[in-house]
């Protein structure tokens, strides 16, 4: 465990038990998942049982106990996206990457997730790769979008 890396996060907080979720959010952002050893340390420092951390990590969708891919694809399945073919878009990405929702591709490049609504309903169907939005994504646009991220490295 890289103590300094975790310490940098913990030092932002007072160490009260209500800081637990913000600390886990920071760990998720920094590590791309919640590593077990770090969670044990957090439990010790905040004097909360590890089981409470586990319940939070598995209740909220943003947390993951497994490492996520380099790029995170979020396909919106909000109502408008649902009506305008969000599921077809998801199927297309899923079959191109060979992974189901909630999984990471073998090369570690992409994780595929769905999201309840991204709030860009006027441009449905919408998807996000990391922090970038893609509007009115018809199935034929998928290869081009994925390629951008595959080529960069």
């Amino acid at each position, binding site marked *: 465990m890289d103590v300094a890396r975790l310490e940098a996060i913990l030092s932002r907080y007072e160490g009260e*038990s*209500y*800081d*637990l*979720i*913000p600390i*886990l*959010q920071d760990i998720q952002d920094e590590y791309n998942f919640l590593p077990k050893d770090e969670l044990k340390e957090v439990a010790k420092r905040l004097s909360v049982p590890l089981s*409470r951390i586990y*319940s*939070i990590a598995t*209740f*909220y*969708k*943003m*947390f993951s106990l497994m490492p996520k891919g380099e790029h995170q694809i979020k396909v919106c*399945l*909000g*109502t*408008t*996206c*649902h*009506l305008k*073919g969000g599921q*077809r878009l998801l*199927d*297309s990405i*899923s*079959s191109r990457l060979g992974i189901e929702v909630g999984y990471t591709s073998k090369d570690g490049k992409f994780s595929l997730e769905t*999201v*309840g*609504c*991204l*709030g*860009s*309903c*006027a*441009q*449905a169907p*919408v998807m996000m790769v990391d*922090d970038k*939005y*893609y*509007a009115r994504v*018809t*199935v*034929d646009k998928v290869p081009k979008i994925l390629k951008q991220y595959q080529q960069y490295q």
Partner: protein
Amino acid sequence: MPRFESVDHLNQYRRQLKAKFDPNQLQVLVCAGPGCLPLGSNALAEAFRAALAERGLNGKVVLKSSGCQGLCAKGVRVLIRPQEISYQKVAPEDVPEIVETTLIKGGIVDRLLYQDPVSGEKCVHKSEIPFYQRQQPIVLRKLDVIDPESLDDYLLLGGYRSLRKAFFEMTPLQVIEALERSGLRGRGGAGFPTGRKWRICREAPEKVKFLICNGDEGDPGAFMDRAVMEGDPHAIIEGMIVGAYAIGASQGYIYVRHEYPLAVKRLKLAIEQAREAGFLGKNILRSGVNFDIKISQGSGAFVCGEETALIASIEGFIGEPSPRPPYPAQAGLFGLPTVINNVETWANVPEIINMGPDWYAAIGTENSKGTKVFSLVGAVNHTGMVEVPMGTTLRQIIFDLGGGIPGGKEFKAVQTGGPSGGCIPQHFLDLPVDYDSLQEVGSIMGSGGMIVMDQTSCMVDVARYFINFLFEESCGKCTPCREGLRQLVHIYNEIINGRGEESHLALMEDLCTAMRSASICGLGQSAVNPVLSTLKYFREEYEAHIFRKKCPALVCRPLIKYTIDPDICTGCLACVRECPVGAISGIRKEAQEIDQELCIKCGLCYEVCQFEAVRRE
């Protein structure tokens, strides 16, 4: 930005801003709202920046990225002030022409104007576009004219003015009375009178009290709160400061979804600015009021939009709701009295104080005062964000503002209130929209999502969609919600897979009755609305699925069949490449065929075929 020590100091600064402001200053406002952002607002703003520099206009034209300009369907939108010229569907390629024709020569770029779909007439100015004419913006008033990251812009338009009146001309009780008289009701959906909530909290005996702004906008199809948090964050903060004074709170929280990274960023910045300027902190404007705000980020759980679950989440627990009473106003965050209002409610507060409660109460209907912001999306020409007085009819919103249904299709239903709302059929189009009327027809106001559906939407599928959504999001604490939703999901799956039975209809109604009366929180209690409203108004669609094993709208996958018309197919193999199960085969440049045994009815072939050779029945 100075730190304002008193109201006089603030007024003096505002006068200086006004004196410096040139009303003839040319401004280019590029919309960076939730609708335009994914279409490339940032690239467009960059193109303007480069073009202005190239033409030596840097000091002469002010470039800003604004909040939502409303008519998202025609993004990216650009507003040129002071003429109020409204351009739409602007791409970086159009920038040199706009700079040359409009900014330098004062002319109009005709092809970027709004064109009326019926008369074909073009509108130059924003005020001429019918979409804007019927609106009455209070909450959205500043969104398209200010830079959300500039406190000066906010102050120039009268920002933080309500603090003077509230702190120095009104007692806390008078502020609460004003809120009560204004008739403002909670914009988060349930419509509880805001003033009454504040009074309950103020009258609670505990000394420490809290305020929360609920920005956990999770309803799919709703983005009003996102647009306000991103486009006018100071209005929310100002409303909360007035609230803090009224109820006697010294700490506030804004709870925002992590799926809204820009809203988080803008709110953080606005809080810092407000602190620096002395609107947050100790002894604000020498009023004796101490108040500060923290941001708490959601972690991806729809149920946290429910107030007791949201409070549990801020306290560092999983978002499980608790039974009410006690209500948060009596015992909320850390067990102390807490006022929790949503984004739009808070954003209404400054204007109610500035303009007076009677002004506000004159807008709207008898029991629903003021305006309501809706995100108008789905099968409607002018998708976007609108703010109309309560009591505006569905027809006015969908047809007059929304421009009707695209592609000559027919209106089928409008869904309001997110997963807790219902589907409203055509014969209620003249219904005036307010809290009570929507409830009477089996839906709710909700936070303001309004999703229009045409004949290509299957109402069984829509209800199934919401039930699936709620099943995934149910926290699992109480049995009626957890198990009721599981059973409903099962029944819907049977129906759309062609195994529906007549008895299913009565069983669904029974389950709904139990869930409505026995679930702990609003999620389970109102989850029945999508089911009951579609069963009531669109029963014939359920019957078609159950008795004839057909989906009339051709949506439910197992009940449809895809074939390729050999006379039209060119053998381009686009569908073959797309098919995830390899069900399409044939010789290149000749007609292809779908193996019905292998086909999973995903419809990808139907979508990629350029020649409309794929048939769906």
